[in-house]
């Protein structure tokens, strides 16, 4: 059983006790522990259940590669599932729950899945989709949904804060081991701007665990000196607890900084996502140890050899009293040596290699450890924890020769360089058969914008597994990178690293090499997703050749660990099954992030009130304070209506309409787009943009205009005012200001670059306030300062001056059909002007009105609305707007498109007014008209649709507009609008102008 040793543990502080709980059990650890080391120190070897079979699972690793020890951390708004115990720093009050087990970890009903494992072979899901047809929905899916799944989704809103940080550096170094620090010194010393990321809270990587000597001294000393030198450099930033998460195009990388996970009571953002632009990215990310594939290799207390060593040396924790070590390389012997040095026992080392004469094995022999060569594990004994192993010949089929009792099995199948970041953006790999690993191919790096490689890999990550060559490699890779970005590094300060030399590894992909099918079915490749050697071999038998297909078919490497332990072993088994070479099978694609990052860090600060910016007019606050019932209009919020106490929305709208029609209303129209177009060619330019003629507009006058896309479809409309000979002010729809400004600039910059025209978007310079209704003039006259009479300011004109002491430009334009002034004032004076109007209008009963009142009033007048009468498929001719299409102009955007046969087709649906026979019935939004016939496909034949439909309080009846086939030719006809409820609304086709067709009301 695992336990805390009486001494040792370079990362823990035995004087500082930390209390935590696991599945409700109160336990203690030390400051510096990870949750994993503390659990092991408390003898907790069983930590979770696997995804498919609910097999008992224990801690395998000591870092981010851990597939098994996933827990739910925290409670309520701080709860997070699938947290790795091996990367979770212990803190007081930590509350962890095991996952995937019901009713308890020790007794899990889902464990019966294990007995049913023969029904979960490779491709199980896909097979059940196919046959028998009924079975997926009624049998398999409900069962799998209950049994499978990792962790529980949080049920409460995340309590924590997150943020981004953008950083620009010359050199980004990912990985703060001795290689990374050596590279950082190199880059720091030449003055480059350097950012070094280390995912753990300790610098120096594995060197101190592996007894590496640097400059003939313990590596810890060199690490300490290197850090103190780097900290003094103003051009170097060191960031611990920050993982290099992903590498993207153009030298972009992300870093994931964990700020408060290790002490949640600390105030501030929990995670910070670094978004880094680097001229060169140097990855010194080290390597991950591979498991060996033998039967029972998933039983709790079967662990990676390196991890067992870490727990002893870093955390003073033994993973078991008696160890059996299975290996195919010399490095693993360090674990056996550490076990004995800690006063524990090694029952045997089973080395699959026949000849083992390296320095480390010989040291182990000298220490009296039993070393068996050419031997393998036939099977691990035990169910919820290891009780022993039976051993066999590696060369054979697994006949057990002897049983050895032990309580921990350490295994090492060699080390795989962490090439993820190199590969994220397309860096290619070579298979190094001598070292049994994929390593970066420096000839095929990920290419940046300038066509050169922007990622270099150094040290262990580059395949230099021994300490001596790894630091040298990191230094020379860094120097290469520095030269590429224009630095001239001087001679390096010499550095000598030493660790015991290692004899070559031997490729061992299953143990024993001729294992029976029965043993294969107990030999796990992917612990989290329960993929066994037998599954990959079955996939190959069924015809899967591509590693990507096999991954998806078997789910190998698809779990939250993304195959950190299983990838290479799985593809080696696939290669063997296909009788192919490993490099020909290749790896699956490495994608960011390297290790899961929180959703919160991806969202950053864009939540709550920072979720999305809302544009506010100068009157916004007043509207909010005065009963405004907001609706979104593009990124603005506009009041739908102003609700009074006890009033329904519909009642408010009716009141606003009648008050405006009978007296005077006030509308905040500031959201209207306003673009100034100026230059000798401005008229010519606007003639191209609008369907009608603008160049002949007189100074001081306004004209309504339509804009089409090149394809002839209506895209925007609005009033154009001519400010002077060369200057026009174009009003756009509220949602269209930015789009139309961009549209103008695009034509000016790409097609008509030689035309002398400048534009400026002045939408936000002005508050635009509409004073509307028969008493509008009286209100403005009361404010004084300007002659607003019909003679001085006739319909469709504007003047400039001051009203009530405020600089103002009133336009005599009307979207309601009433006497109406739209007055532009400086935005800073908008609220003051609004207040003046409200005050001056008191005697006339002035009331503010909202967008729904505006809509109803314009519909009463038969005015179209972009977005209601248009939907991107409608042309001006459909809306009977031929009068606004100039026949005199040679060209305008959309003209040619209007000539296409489909656009000129007389049967296009055209705009008409619609009156329901029952005046109280309002046609539902979006209703379609039918003619009683049925199409070939059985659908009712549709002959039109409603585009705007309201109850008009002015007329005391329902009114609507719609696009109807041959509509204008069918005046007086009665057509049917079926409703969703199955009723039919009878509707009479009429003219679209319901109120004051002569325009008497507005032209006074």
């Amino acid at each position, binding site marked *: 059983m695992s336990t805390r040793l009486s001494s040792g543990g370079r990362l823990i502080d035995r004087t500082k006790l930390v209390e935590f709980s696991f599945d409700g059990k109160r336990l203690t650890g030390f400051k510096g522990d990870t949750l994993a080391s503390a659990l092991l120190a408390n003898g907790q070897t069983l930590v979770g259940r696997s995804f498919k079979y609910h097999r008992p699972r224990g801690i395998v690793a000591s870092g981010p590669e851990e597939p098994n020890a996933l827990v739910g951390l925290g409670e309520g708004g701080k709860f997070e599932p699938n947290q790795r115990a091996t990367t979770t720093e212990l803190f007081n009050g930590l509350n962890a729950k095991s996952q995937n087990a019901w009713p308890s970890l020790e007794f899990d009903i889902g464990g019966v899945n294990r007995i049913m494992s023969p029904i979960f072979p490779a491709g199980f899901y896909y097979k059940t989709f196919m046959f028998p047809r009924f079975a997926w929905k009624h049998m398999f899916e409900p069962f799998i949904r209950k049994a499978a799944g990792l962790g529980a989704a949080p049920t409460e809103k995340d309590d924590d804060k997150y943020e981004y940080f953008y950083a620009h550096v010359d050199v980004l170094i990912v990985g703060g081991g001795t290689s990374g620090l050596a590279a950082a010194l190199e880059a720091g010393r030449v003055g480059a701007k350097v950012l070094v990321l280390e995912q753990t809270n300790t610098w120096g990587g594995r060197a101190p665990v592996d007894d590496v000597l640097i400059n003939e001294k313990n590596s810890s000393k060199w690490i300490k000196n290197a850090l103190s030198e780097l900290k003094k450099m103003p051009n170097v930033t060191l960031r611990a607890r920050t993982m290099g998460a992903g590498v993207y195009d153009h030298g972009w990388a992300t870093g994931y900084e964990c700020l408060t996970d290790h002490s949640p009571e600390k105030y501030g*953002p929990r995670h910070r996502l670094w978004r880094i*632009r680097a001229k060169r990215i140097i990855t010194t990310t080290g390597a991950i140890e591979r498991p060996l594939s033998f039967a029972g290799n998933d039983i709790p207390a079967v662990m990676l050899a390196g991890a067992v060593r870490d727990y002893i040396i870093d955390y003073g924790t033994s993973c078991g009293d008696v160890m059996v070590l299975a290996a195919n390389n010399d490095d693993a012997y360090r674990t056996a040596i550490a076990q004995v040095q800690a006063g524990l026992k090694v029952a045997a080392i089973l080395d699959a290699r026949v000849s083992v004469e390296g320095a480390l094995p010989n040291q182990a022999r000298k220490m009296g450890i039993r070393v068996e060569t050419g031997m393998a594990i036939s099977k691990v004994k035990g169910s919820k924890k290891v009780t022993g192993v039976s051993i066999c010949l590696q060369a054979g089929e697994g006949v057990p020769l002897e049983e050895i009792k032990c309580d921990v099995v350490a295994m090492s199948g060699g080390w795989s360089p962490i090439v993820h970041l190199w590969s994220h953006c397309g860096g290619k790999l070579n298979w190094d058969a001598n070292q049994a690993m994929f390593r970066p191919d420096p000839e095929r790096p990920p290419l940046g914008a300038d066509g050169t490689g922007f990622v270099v890999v150094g040290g262990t990550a580059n395949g230099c597994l021994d300490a001596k060559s790894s630091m040298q490699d990191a230094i020379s890779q860094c120097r290469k990178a520095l030269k590429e970005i224009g630095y001239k590094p001087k001679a390096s300060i010499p550095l000598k690293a030493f660790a015991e030399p290692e004899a070559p590894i031997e490729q061992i992909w299953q143990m024993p090499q001729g294992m029976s099918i029965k043993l294969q079915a107990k030999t796990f490749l992917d612990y989290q997703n329960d993929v066994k050697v037998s599954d990959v071999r079955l996939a190959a038998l069924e015809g899967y050749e591509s590693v990507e297909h096999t991954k998806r078919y078997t789910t190998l490497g698809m779990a939250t660990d993304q195959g950190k332990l299983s990838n290479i072993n799985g593809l080696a088994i696939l290669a063997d099954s296909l009788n192919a070479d490993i490099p020909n099978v290749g790896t699956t694609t490495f994608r960011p992030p390297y290790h899961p990052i929180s959703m919160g860090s991806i969202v950053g600060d864009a939540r709550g009130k*920072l979720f999305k910016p809302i544009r506010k007019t*100068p009157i916004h606050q007043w509207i909010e304070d005065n009963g405004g019932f907001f609706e979104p209009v593009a990124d603005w919020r506009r009041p739908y209506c102003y609700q009074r106490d006890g009033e329904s929305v519909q009642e408010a709208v009716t009141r606003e309409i009648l008050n405006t029609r009978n007296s005077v209303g006030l509308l905040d129209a500031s959201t209207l787009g306003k673009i100034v177009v100026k230059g000798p060619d401005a008229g010519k330019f606007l003639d191209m943009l609008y369907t009608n003629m603008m160049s002949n507009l007189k100074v001081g006058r306004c004209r309504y205009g339509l804009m089409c896309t090149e394809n002839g479809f209506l895209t925007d409309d609005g009033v154009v005012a001519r400010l002077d000979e060369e200057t026009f002010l174009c009003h756009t729809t509220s949602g269209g200001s930015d789009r139309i400004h961009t549209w103008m600039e695009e034509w000016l910059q790409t097609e008509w670059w030689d035309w002398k025209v400048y534009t*400026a978007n002045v939408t*936000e310079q002005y508050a635009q306030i509409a004073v509307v209704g028969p008493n509008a003039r009286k209100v403005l006259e009361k404010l004084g300062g300007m002659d607003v009479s019909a003679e001085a300011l006739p319909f469709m004109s504007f003047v400039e001056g001051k009203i009530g002491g405020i600089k103002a430009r009133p336009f005599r334009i009307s979207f309601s059909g009433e006497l109406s002034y739209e007055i532009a004032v400086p935005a800073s004076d908008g609220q003051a002007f609004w207040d003046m109007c409200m005050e001056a209008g008191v005697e006339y009963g002035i009331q503010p009105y909202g967008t729904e009142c505006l809509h109803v009033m314009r519909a009463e007048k038969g005015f179209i609305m972009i977005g209601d009468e248009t939907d991107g498929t409608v042309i001006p001719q459909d809306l009977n707007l031929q009068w606004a299409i100039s026949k005199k102009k040679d060209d305008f955007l959309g003209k040619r498109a209007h000539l296409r046969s489909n656009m000129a087709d007389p049967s296009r649906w055209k705009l008409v007014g619609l009156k329901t026979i029952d005046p109280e019935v309002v046609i539902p939004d979006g209703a379609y008209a039918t003619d009683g016939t049925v199409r070939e496909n059985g659908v009712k034949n549709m002959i039109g649709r409603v585009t705007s439909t309201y109850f008009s309080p002015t007329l005391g009846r329902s009114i609507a507009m719609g696009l109807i086939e041959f509509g204008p030719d069918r005046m007086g006809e009665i057509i049917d609008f079926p409703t969703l409820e199955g009723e039919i609304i009878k509707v009479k086709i009429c003219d679209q102008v319901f109120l004051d067709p002569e325009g008497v009301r507005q032209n006074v």
Partner: protein
Amino acid sequence: MFSVTGLNGASSNGSINVKDAGLIGMITLRGDLKSDAIAKVIKVVTGTNIPDQRQCVFTSKGATAWMSPDELLVMVDYESVDATIAKMEKSLQGVHSLIVNVSDARAVFELTGSSIRDVISKGSPADMSSKILPVGEVRRTRIAQLAVAFWFTSDTTARLVCFRSVAGYVMDWLENASEKGSEVGFH
């Protein structure tokens, strides 16, 4: 006498101080920046030369910032904008150009503190190092989801400009990004 800014005097005190810089006269001038006529008018109204690419130049009379290859931002007293525009229009008569008042279309923030660069880096992808963005250089970029421009007026003071309608969002954003406990210590 009536005029209020979009920020209406808002301020916050976190790792940096943020406050409403008040009403500032801003005029957009578009034209041929290489022409003598424009150089002359800029000299007259702000006392500055035509700024080089991305530069912002100041005198006691006002400031001129480079906005794009054919656009300048002229900054003067809010009260004198109309007179300045009239002067500019008169002297550029017959010269193809565009002069518009944008004073009320913007909100201006006064930022003070030693960690302005770190705070802005939480939302702007621009390189905020003092080497790349020294005092006197203007940057048109974004913060979070919004277009902004800013320039340092000293090592510890900067001005930031955004559209008036989103002044409240930018204020909230700056307040959040400069909240104590979230310091980065990068720049």
